């Protein structure tokens, strides 16, 4: 290679702006993160501005956009979204998001606010159902309450405490001669009692946690049909905002069960939370 050629290559090399290129590359690498963070705040603020102006449909759009940008559900955003849906009289979506907010909220004030708005929305749904003749389902009866109680943290904690006490009693009975011989009958009764309670509570909690998933109906007076298809006869109407159990699925349809036991098929897009349905079942 001649000296002239080397000189030209060196000149070309010298002309390439390595510094700015590096900066740009770094900026491009960092930009998505920064931009994403800004987009979240911007969408969230836009939603609140629309809400302040009473444009609830726009507010919902912005909040939904915010939700899609976040890596995980946020309790405050779910509360705002549920409340905006309630203001826009979309009770089904409102019930769903307020329930999510209630589940995620760690702050007492936020939890209380979500609970209150949820009760207001459910009363509205009750009124609408009363005027439209549609059925309501909230899975708020004593069975559902017992089921929720069994899967509650306090019950599970109590179950584990009883299990721990059972383990201790078992240890004392097995390894400490004083308990094993001196008070043998007493410790045995205590051990058996704790063991039975521990196993019983554990089984009840485990069974209660299983079962069919819950979903929320969206829309007003939604038709529920006798089978998976529009050609089937209409069985009854269910009010939007009702909480139902998803029992089966067919393409585009879900089989639901109301709290009172009525079952029927509903269009899939009329449910929120029905994506994780049970195994496929044949439609009639």
């Amino acid at each position, binding site marked *: 290679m001649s000296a002239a050629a080397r000189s030209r290559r060196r000149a070309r090399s010298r002309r390439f702006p390595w510094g700015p290129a590096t900066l740009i590359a770094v900026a491009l690498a960092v930009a998505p993160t920064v931009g994403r*963070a800004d987009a979240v705040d911007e969408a*969230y603020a836009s939603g609140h501005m629309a809400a302040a102006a009473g444009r609830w449909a726009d507010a919902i759009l912005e909040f939904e956009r915010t939700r899609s940008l976040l890596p995980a559900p946020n309790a405050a955003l779910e509360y705002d979204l549920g409340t905006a849906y309630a203001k826009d009289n979309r009770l089904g979506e409102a019930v769903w998001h307020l329930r999510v907010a209630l589940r995620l909220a760690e702050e*007492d004030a936020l939890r209380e606010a979500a609970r209150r*708005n949820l009760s207001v929305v459910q009363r509205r749904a009750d*009124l609408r159902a009363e005027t439209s003749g549609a059925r309501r389902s909230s899975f708020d009866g004593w069975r559902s309450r017992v089921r929720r109680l069994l899967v509650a943290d306090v019950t599970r904690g109590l179950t584990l405490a009883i*299990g721990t006490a059972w383990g201790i009693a078992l240890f004392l009975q097995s390894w400490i001669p004083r308990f094993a011989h001196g008070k043998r009958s007493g410790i045995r009764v205590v051990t058996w009692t704790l063991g039975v309670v521990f196993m019983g509570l554990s089984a009840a909690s485990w069974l209660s946690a299983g079962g069919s998933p819950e979903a929320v109906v969206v829309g007003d007076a939604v038709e529920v049909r006798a089978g998976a298809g529009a050609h089937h006869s209409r069985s009854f109407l269910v009010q939007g905002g009702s909480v139902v159990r998803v029992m089966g699925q067919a393409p585009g349809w879900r089989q639901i069960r109301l709290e009172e036991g009525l079952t029927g098929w509903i269009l899939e897009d009329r449910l929120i939370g029905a994506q994780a349905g049970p195994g496929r079942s044949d439609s009639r």
Partner: protein
Amino acid sequence: MSRGRRRFVVGALGAAVGGATGARPRVASGAQGPSVVVRSDRRQVRVGEDFLVEVEVRTDDRRDAQSPGDPVMPAEPGLDYTFRSSSMSRSMTYRNGVMSSETTRTFSYAVRATRPGTYELLVSVEAAGRAIFATQVPVVVATGAALEDEAASGAPGPTGGAAREGTPPGAAPPAQTASESVFARVVTSAERIFVGEPIVAQWEVWQRVTASIEIESLPDFRDFFSVELPALDPEDRFVGGRQWRVHPAVRRVLFPQRAGTLSVGGGVLQVQPASGFGLFRRPTGRAFTVQGTPAVIEVRPLPAEGRPPHFSPNNVGRYTISSEIDRARVRAGDAFTVTYVIEGAGNLESVDPGEFAAPDGGRTYPPTDTVNTQIVGERVQGTRTIEILVVAERAGNLVIPAHSMAYFDPDTESYQVARTSPLTIEVTAPMDAAGTGTGPIAQPPPGTDAGAQDVDAGGAETSEGVLLPLREEDRLSRGVPSAGGMSRSRFGLAWGGIAGVGLSIWGARRVVERLRPSSEVARRRQMVGEFRDGMQRAADLLDTGDSEFYGELGRVLRAATVARAGPDAEGLTRDRLVDELARSGAEASACEYVRETLERCDAARFGGGEDVDDRRARLERVRVLLGTWRML
């Protein structure tokens, strides 16, 4: 049985048989002459309307030598009789060895009442020179106005025009052709009514020849709101002595919707003359079309005098209205139902109840409307129930205002007003009026007390409670929230840990118990330990003197010998112990050495012992012996 009693029984039986055989002819001959039975197909008729009367005369051919004459109809001035037909039948019976024959003659008459009244059809026949009257006399009641001029009455038929039901059908013209033997007409219960006033219209198809009749088009009720009435069964009517089959094909209650001269179209029939019946029916002649005779009704407008403002012309009839609420007390935000019931006769489905005023302090929802009508006679009556859901918005007494509904009563030809009374319901404070939150969201608005938050702060939203406002965060958390609490997986892990520990404790104890030596082995181990200790003590006593050494060695050796010989050797003397040891299978040299050592140990108590080396040698020998017996 004595002779007297036998005579009495035989006499009684003979009297009974004689009485029975003697009475039978008397009963049979009790009814002298023919019997007359009169039947009428109607009990109540209108004046001018024909009905059928049948007279049945029965004669016993063997008994009644002379046949009776024709029936003599009662000479009532208000009844006209037209003889139609007669028939005769004969029956023969064989009973008790006697053949009897009975002849039945049936005479059929078309009877028309020309004057109102109650008529007894006392029919008689003449037999053997005397009149025999019917045993059962039917009574027919004729209602309506007397006929002054039969010719003036509207006669049904193809050329008869519209005939109002209740007017005498009169004599139809003799049907000479098939087309004149089938016709249709609309009969209405009134010819002059008000707008909205109900009348009954009946489309009748008359026929007096066998024909297949198809309805091409029904009557036209375009200017009327109509309610279907139950169809009546076909019936036979007699007009001018001719029998017609009348089919009431359509029967409706009509509510005229406008004033003027309205007509109800007569419909169109397709008639195919035929003969035979059932499967054997076959057409005879050419088919033809029959245009029904329409009915013309003069509908008067409702009078302007006394008409309430905004009066609906559908409110014609006679109505009452009542209202009630389903509870006496509610909480603010709760709903209750106000029920209005309109009851009466008229066009209930179209009646306009008017606007129901919303109560002050209550929000109303669109009402539900239920109409329940019945056909009673020729009237449409029933109830219309209007339920309004009301949500109480604030505490206090909520008054449901009185409601009034104006209607036109066609009977009195005047406007009336039906009213309800105002209702009061007590509204208490809402259940969650004390507010719910502790954070900034749930704080009651400034200037309002907590108890009034739900009812005062929300404007239009107060009915179901106030939606708390949005919660605007400074910055949304981007983090993934911790699962927190006792999730199912966490609970499962903790449960598994506890259960595993418990089962481990239990299992370990079971394993230990399984591996623990038996009591025999333990006892042997203890024994061996004691032998070792004894041997050690003896070794320690080698230098101290004979008595202590041999005493310790003797105890060890005796105990080992007893253990080797078995439990039966316990407590035996030395010689017997050694014998027992020999019986247990021990070697003779070992037995001899045990005997000699035990003797030496006993002798050591009296002195004159061995030196240290001898004692050590004896100790070692005993140790070897115990080792042989596996007791060290």
